[in-house]
């Protein structure tokens, strides 16, 4: 009866009906929904928690008691890593590489995107298509020639040898996002600025960039996350362990302590911790940045 009424009723009433129906104590959907979500969430979270807890066990207990909490919490595993130079060094290397990669990607792509969005010149369409070619294939396709290129430039086994190729690969996405955003800026602004004798460079620095902060931070976030997590490019281009960013450092550590799972687990936990902390603190920006970047690209 109420079903029929809801269908016949005008939409406002239908909505009110529906709402009241959802609030009925006998409606099992909210409970079902919550149960499904909790199951999926625990599948997502359990591996992370198991890893963190595993780092608190002794190797023998890891084997004898893989499911439960540790009988005795072994802080020594974590303490050893936190006191080692190695842990801080790999994080520091990653931070340095990621910051410089972001700086180069954002500045070069903003300049190029400004030219593509605001200036008219011969070959603009062609050059823009050329730059966005980078979106079509992964860095892996040319990783061997890249190795040779970087070696011949004398940049092999240096931070710049990783930063420049990474920035080059992220440029395509960054130029596309920024050009689309810059095109939305009213062209009257540029006209007015030019009448006032403001040149293109000053216009870019004092008008375009400040007006585009949200999209610039989106590009910066995407680039930073990619660089922070990147593995293949530094794997090929770095040899010296003191230069390793953390994903490489993690693999090297695992290779060294392969039989000591409890140490490897503590090391994994500590190396992903910065990302998790930053994610929790800035989740809104990070989620919005990464998804908006994908949708707009």
């Amino acid at each position, binding site marked *: 009866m109420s079903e029929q009424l809801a269908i016949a009723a005008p*939409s406002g009433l*239908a909505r009110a009906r529906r709402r009241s129906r959802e609030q009925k104590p006998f409606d099992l959907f909210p409970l079902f929904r919550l149960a499904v*979500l909790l199951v*999926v*969430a625990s599948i997502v979270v359990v591996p*992370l928690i*198991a*890893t963190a807890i595993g780092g608190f066990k002794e190797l023998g207990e890891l*084997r004898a008691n*893989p*499911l439960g909490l540790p009988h005795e919490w072994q802080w020594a595993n974590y303490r050893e890593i936190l006191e080692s130079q190695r842990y801080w060094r790999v994080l520091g290397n990653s931070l340095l590489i990621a910051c410089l990669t972001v700086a180069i990607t954002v500045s*070069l792509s903003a*300049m*190029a995107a*400004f*030219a593509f969005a605001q*200036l008219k010149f*011969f070959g*603009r369409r062609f*050059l823009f298509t*050329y730059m966005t*070619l*980078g979106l079509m*294939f*992964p*860095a*892996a396709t*040319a*990783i*061997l*020639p890249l*190795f040779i*290129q970087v070696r011949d430039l004398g940049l092999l086994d240096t931070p710049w040898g990783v930063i*420049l190729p990474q920035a*080059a690969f992220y*440029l*395509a996405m960054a*130029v596309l996002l920024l050009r689309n955003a810059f095109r939305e800026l009213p062209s009257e602004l*540029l*006209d007015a600025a*030019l*009448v006032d004798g403001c040149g*293109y*460079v000053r216009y*870019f620095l004092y008008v375009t960039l400040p007006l585009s902060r949200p999209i610039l931070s989106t590009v910066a976030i995407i680039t930073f996350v990619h660089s922070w*997590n990147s*593995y*293949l490019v530094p794997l*090929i281009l770095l040899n010296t362990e003191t230069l390793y960013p953390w*994903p490489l450092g*993690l*693999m090297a550590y695992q290779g060294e302590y392969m039989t000591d*799972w409890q140490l490897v687990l503590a090391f*994994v936990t500590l190396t*992903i911790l910065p990302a998790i902390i930053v*994610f929790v603190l800035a989740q809104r920006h990070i*989620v919005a940045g*990464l*998804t908006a970047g*994908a949708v707009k690209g």
Partner: protein
Amino acid sequence: MTVTTIRDSRGASGGMIAAALIFLPPALLLFTIFVILPIGEAAWYSFYNWNGFNRPDNFIGLKNYISLLDNPYFKKAVLNTLIIIAVSLTVQLPLALAMALLLAKRAFGAVAFRLIFFMPYILADVAAGLIFRFMFDGDYGPVSGLSQALGFGPIYMLASPSLAMVALLVVIIWKYFGFHMMLFIAGLQGIDRSLYEAAEIDGAGAFQRFRFVTIPQLSSMIKLSVFFSVIGVFQLFDVVMPLTGGGPFNATHTMVSFLYIFGITRMRVGFGSSVGVVLFIICVTFAFGYRRFLMRDE
């Protein structure tokens, strides 16, 4: 004197071109040196038998490509890629869509669940691979531990070619479904409420509303999500190395891990380049074809 004439005269007099000459070259140069040139060089090296030292001078024509297409591990890697794509589209995307439907509206815990599901996406693939290498470890891992607790004995998932492939699929879904879910949530939130009300007035049930309103309205997001899934699978590498290293018995290689193990670690530049060229052709063909035929209107 109007504004446009000033702008036009500046443009014509070369102001714009001069500005373009300042703004464009740095990005173009970096991109050309580290992205485009290596691709061209890959095509060139792929015709040589070369170990990377001195100059490539041992021209062998198409031999690298012939031995690549004959290589059983490469065939397996291509097959694995297709399997991963198929599972991504038939398991991961429906899961992501289902979670998006449960979490798109403001409801109890929606934001918290979204964040939890999205979190694996921001973690490095390498860490995810290693975490699951532990989870699936036969001696120390919780999955095997659970099986023992239930009386089934230990499971050595990563030691069995077919189970290792299942493990790889689990990690990929675990890591990426949250990202696709966020795409779908963004899509769902963009759907005009009145469409649902109209459908309801017309007597559409819940399933019909889903079938005839939600799915068509989401189609562009679904196409985008499929695109990212496929492109992502083509470049899959970071997860594979810590989890299985392509093993056991080279059963879980992707194209990139094959390239790494058989081209890079053995410094077979010519052979490795031919893998890169094949991967390049597949990616570009897919990207162009997909955009041309499926994403035409966007």
